[in-house]
């Protein structure tokens, strides 16, 4: 799914969703600044911020926003020791901003 398709989905959401955006990245990361992902209550709707563990952290953090949590920045560290065979060995660090994409569709506001 390309960037414009994610943008079109974001513009036309019919369910509450959390938008995750890579707002800065340092070193080697799978996706660069500007990459976007939409997360619904039941999981990812569209896009990616790089997959693997890093993305899992973002999806977990997004659940807080469905429970009324404030927008925040998730710092994803992909600089694990290479020999650990962890999937997080790209060698970079990225900041992912998460926020309610469409606050009007969240029942509590």
């Amino acid at each position, binding site marked *: 799914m390309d960037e*414009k398709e994610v943008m079109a989905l974001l*513009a036309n959401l019919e369910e509450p969703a959390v938008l995750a*955006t890579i707002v800065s990245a340092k070193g080697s990361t799978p996706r660069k600044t*500007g990459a976007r992902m939409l997360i619904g209550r039941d999981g990812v709707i569209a896009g990616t911020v790089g997959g693997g563990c890093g993305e899992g952290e973002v999806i977990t953090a997004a659940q807080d926003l469905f429970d009324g949590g404030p927008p925040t920045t998730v710092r994803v560290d992909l600089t694990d020791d290479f020999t650990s065979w962890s999937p997080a060995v790209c060698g970079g660090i990225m900041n992912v901003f998460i926020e309610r994409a469409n606050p009007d569709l969240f029942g509590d506001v």
Partner: protein
Amino acid sequence: MKLSAARVAARVLEALEMGERIYTAVVVDSADRSMIGRRWWLSGRRSRGTLGDPALDAAVAGAVPSLFPPRESRGALSRDFEYRDGERAVTARVYLELHGPPARMVIVGAGHIAIPLARMGSMLGMRVEVLDDRPEFASADRFPDADAVRVIDFRDPFAATALGPSDHVILVTRGHSFDYECLVRLLRMEAPPGYIGMIGSRRRVRATHEQLAREGFTTEDMGRVRAPVGLDLGGQTPAEIAVSVAAEIILFHAGGTGVPLVEKERVVERFFGGEGA
């Protein structure tokens, strides 16, 4: 009501549809937590929303033209902005995006190099236009990937193509004098294309520059022309030449070095102590 990410996305799509350039901003960190997530957009003189403080809005609006070079049509970055809140200087971290009409590749000369080059321009996401004065060459059948194919008069080659800093013009006409005519027009534009490339042998390029100098163009003007166009890959065929031009355009935007990555990184040499052993 606060401007949501969804609303701003709808506005961005609308701007792209209209061929407009739009900047979007959102506060991602601030001592005043209530500002986080506040957003704003700016397109031409129109803007909507707020980052939570008019002084911050003004600081960001003033900075965007220098943060995103006019030749770029896409961009994303975060910056710390300092602004005054009454007597205090405060800092907010703002994430900004630029969305503009897709970059354009204008190929002048619809000969054998133009065919693979038009395809590659399209693959790179550019809007491709091909110009030639020969209707049998400047035909849509020859260029299925081009967004526009125009039959032009070399006395005024860009009459139907309004050019600006975000454009890429590649001169691959059949004749030296046609390339030269185009070049003079491009260099005299108030806001010339950011990327001007001309194909040619060293001799032909030198002759062109001599003629430009006689016409009163400065070495700075001449320095704006990439001639001979392309990276030194050693290729010969039209497809190979098109790859070398496309590669130079990527380099122009992405700011790499153009050297093979294996030579740049030298992983074996650096980490295994050998000379490639």
